[in-house]
């Protein structure tokens, strides 16, 4: 018995050793080249950092870039290069990107598409239709996508293929649920006005409602200020808590804290960070003000902001800080320009997307030890990162 076990173990070891010796089959995107950047000190020498460039609304110019960590190559326009038959490209306004397993999910807002790609080589796996999708989160079984939905909320396609609407005065948004197995929408639930960020923790979804459109519409002209909490088991809204106007990002630190950022109302309520305790979410805590961009790494939320944010003519200088378990720590990082996206790869390696004039291609810069290490031209409005 013992012998057999030993044999098995040896065999397994041998197999493992063999596997290690196997020639590495290069990914199909290995041939893509780009500007070579210094990736020394990055936490991994494998995989990629994806950069989603939003593009301009109506310009159909969302693009996908990636930084390959093995050789530091920054590849632009990877979606089009790896899917040459997709004539229309990635689409109009890439609003969110996330890696789940060996797939990368891209939310293409104004195309009404949630794009599923192989994270290995960026080839298309599926394109799922979701009306005005915004952000995405996962649990083990489903992808959840927030949607401004508009009239889609209470309309649908009939058996004859025609579209009918039952109630269009209600511009509330929804969360759509997509099965990771079938890659099809299998349900949706109504939340607040123009939902944005979404995060999943312990069988609950936390959805930030912005009201970005309803703030401009009669009769109320007001932002939403709520977080909708959805029970993933029943897929129903189980609670709604008020936080602050015009909510944007939601993060779960995995330790029972939900972080929510707000954009403010652009004149007397500043942007900021709030924290909800999942055991009593109804009393959110105000952590700090001034959040232009934010990102989560592990259990820590990083924010970059400026106290001159409502002065449209000012040249801003931004300061950075982090929050862990409700405790704020300054981060030695100073950024100028128009930061539009943030990724924190290590305690001291920051990637910042700069949108420039929002119209011409922006840049992605790497900062460490408070200094800018390099800067590379990306696509228009580089706003979202995902690590594979």
């Amino acid at each position: 018995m013992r012998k057999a076990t030993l044999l098995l173990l040896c065999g397994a070891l041998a197999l493992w050793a063999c596997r290690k010796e196997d020639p590495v089959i290069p990914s199909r995107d290995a041939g893509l080249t780009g500007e070579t950047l210094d990736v020394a000190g990055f936490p991994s020498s494998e995989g990629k950092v994806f950069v989603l460039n939003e593009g301009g609304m109506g310009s159909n110019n969302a693009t996908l870039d990636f930084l390959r960590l093995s050789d530091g190559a920054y590849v632009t326009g990877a979606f089009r290069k790896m899917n040459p038959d997709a004539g229309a490209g990635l689409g109009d306004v890439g609003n969110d990107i996330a890696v789940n397993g060996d797939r990368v999910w891209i939310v293409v807002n104004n195309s009404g598409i949630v794009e599923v790609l192989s994270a290995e080589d960026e080839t298309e796996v599926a394109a799922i239709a979701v009306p005005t999708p915004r952000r995405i989160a996962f649990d083990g079984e489903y992808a959840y996508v927030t949607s401004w939905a508009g009239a889609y909320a209470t309309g649908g396609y009939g058996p004859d293929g025609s579209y009918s609407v039952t109630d269009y005065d209600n511009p509330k948004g929804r969360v759509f649920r997509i099965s990771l197995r079938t890659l099809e929408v299998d349900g949706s639930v109504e939340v607040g006005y123009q939902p944005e960020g979404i995060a999943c923790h312990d069988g609950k979804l936390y959805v930030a409602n912005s009201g970005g459109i309803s703030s401009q519409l009669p009769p109320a002209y007001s932002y939403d200020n709520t977080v909708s909490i959805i029970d993933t088991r029943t897929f129903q809204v189980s609670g709604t808590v008020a936080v602050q106007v015009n909510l944007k990002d939601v993060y779960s630190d995995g330790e029972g804290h939900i972080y929510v950022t707000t954009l403010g109302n652009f004149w007397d309520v500043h942007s900021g960070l709030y924290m909800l305790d999942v055991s009593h979410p109804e009393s959110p805590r105000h952590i700090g003000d001034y959040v232009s961009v934010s990102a989560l790494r592990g259990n820590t939320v990083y924010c970059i902001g400026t106290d001159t944010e409502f002065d449209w003519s000012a040249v801003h200088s931004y300061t950075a800080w982090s929050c862990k378990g409700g405790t704020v720590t300054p981060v030695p990082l100073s950024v100028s320009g128009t930061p539009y996206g943030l990724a924190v790869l290590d305690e001291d390696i920051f990637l910042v997307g700069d949108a420039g004039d929002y119209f011409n291609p922006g840049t992605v810069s790497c900062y460490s030890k408070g200094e800018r290490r390099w800067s590379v031209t990306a696509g228009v409005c580089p706003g979202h990162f995902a690590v594979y």
Partner: protein
Amino acid sequence: MVGNGWSLPWTFRCVLVLSIFHILPCLLLSVSGPLPAGQTDTLAAAMVSSVQLLPVVKPAEEVSLPDWKAAPAQMADILRRFTGVQVKDYGGVGGLKTVNVRSLGSEHVGIFLDGIQIENAQNMQVDLGRLSTSGGIGRIALYNGQKTRRLQTAKEYASGAAVYLDSVEPTLPDGSGGEVRIRGGAFGTFNPSLQWNRRWDRVLLQVSAEGLASNGRYKYPCFDTTLVRENGDIRSARLETMLSGRLRQGEWKVRLYGYGSERGFPGPVIRRAAGFPFSAERQADRDLFVQGGWNQEWTGRYATALRFKLANSYIHYDTHPEKNPMALPYNLHYRQRSAYLSLAQSLAVSGPWSVDLSTDWQRNALDSDVGQFVTPRRSVFTGVLATRLSWERLRLAGHLAWLGAWDRYDSPSAGGWSRENAFRRAWMPSVSLYYAPFQWLEADVFVKRSFRMPSFNDLYYSLMGNAALVPESALQAGADFHFRFPGRTWSWEGRVSPYRNRVDKKIVAIPTASQFRWTMLNIGRVDVAGVDVKSDLELRRGDWKAGALFRYSYQNAVDHSAPGSQTWGNQIPYIPLHSGSADLSVAWKTWTLAWDWVYTGGRWSRMAHTPDYYVAPWLLCDLSLHKKTLMPTRSGHRVKTPELDVGITCYNLLDQSYQVVQGYPMPGIHLMLSVSYAW
């Protein structure tokens, strides 16, 4: 809220209002009864020496519509041929069309209807698509330099470049006359129009009506497939009444104008999930204005011109989320009102020297139900002191204009909203010189500085506007050499016009997903160097007449905003380096065949020159055939013989699929028919 039950009752209401508005003056006038025809005199012009009336700078382009049988029905189709002009066109009958001259930007181009500016304080873009060639407009002229005539409004001095649409007095040997025209064809277009003129002694009445309906459907290539453009339909109606008359040593004119339309915006061509439409956006609008003027010679040396305009325009914009799940749920209403008063005075001091003083006052108001709307109000005063020295072969003109704009708007402040003031001003000088050394050569040079005020959208559009904007400056210097060799069987005219422009503190508006919303981009500085060349040859022999008109424009318009930036030295968006046109025509007796070509070179849709933003060059070819028939009349004593004109035009004969604005495909080959009857 005016939005509910909009479509039908609105149309009805509009027609009702317009009818009362137009029929009443006609009734009032008809009591005065007809008087013998043929009393054509030009009293006003006779008083000052004729040389004083000569222009210093001649128009760069000038067309006379009654002479042009195959004239396109759309103003944009005429202007796009002009040298140095770029027309931005979002495609289709109802698509937005704006004009840009010598890379100054469309906001620097004033469009003047009988000398009074058509304007839009909201975004400073005049949609050429709304201007028709069948509204009694007889002359279209483009001025690059400064138009320098007597008794101009101050606004005429204050715009960078100017397009003039002037109505001409119809010749009415019978005391009355008119024209009925029906045009139609591709995209289900039906475009009837009527013009009716009547003269009593010293008063002329002109009534013009036009309707337009089109489904706007055409095929276009959409990435790997071919689709049909949807939601590009339009219905519109225009009704105008013009009264003009002569006084002792003077003249007056009043125009009542009403326009209403309801249209769809097909939206840009982008990737869109199957089942979701590109767009369901609709816009209904209504424009009403009354404008007029009174020119009077007081003594042989002193004359005045008083002009006014009252305008009211209304827009209802709806994204129709019930029809398009991708639409952002907007349902907005805008109302713009303006009042304008202008007094121009001219004094012939002595001999060749004359001095003009023009003063304009204008008030603009914009209201909307959009959230956090700042309800801006603007008062603009413009004063101009201009002087001219005119001899037969040498003429000099100069002016100094001062423009002040006072804005009031709501601004968010601690504890609520407060009313804020803003003041912007600009000094604008200009000098022009004309010299004709030979019979066959005329030359002029000009230098001009002008400013355009930031529009309400630039300043106050919520989340996009920037109240800190300053006026955008345009400095122009140009020369023009005009050669002329007239002959009996042939004649040739040629023009060469080099120029340099600098636009500083440039505010650029680029459309987003919907044509109604704009993103502000302050490019900073643009340097333009260009040359316009034109050659016009005409041959005549017996019943034959042939013409060949070639135009070429070179425009090197580069970004000089931020040294070291990625776009420094790049050609600015949507300006081709090379563009040109060729109009060839042959006429034999009552037949006219016209063959027109328009070429626009490659352009970029962004300042950054990457392949994604390259807009391919295009070459358009239109072919048209017209036949005129003189109609026999039963009553043989009529002075004027009625004419029937039948024409057919094939547009885009080469069936090019092209885009003027990236993402907005233009129609391929299509046919239009027109039948008109003039009496």
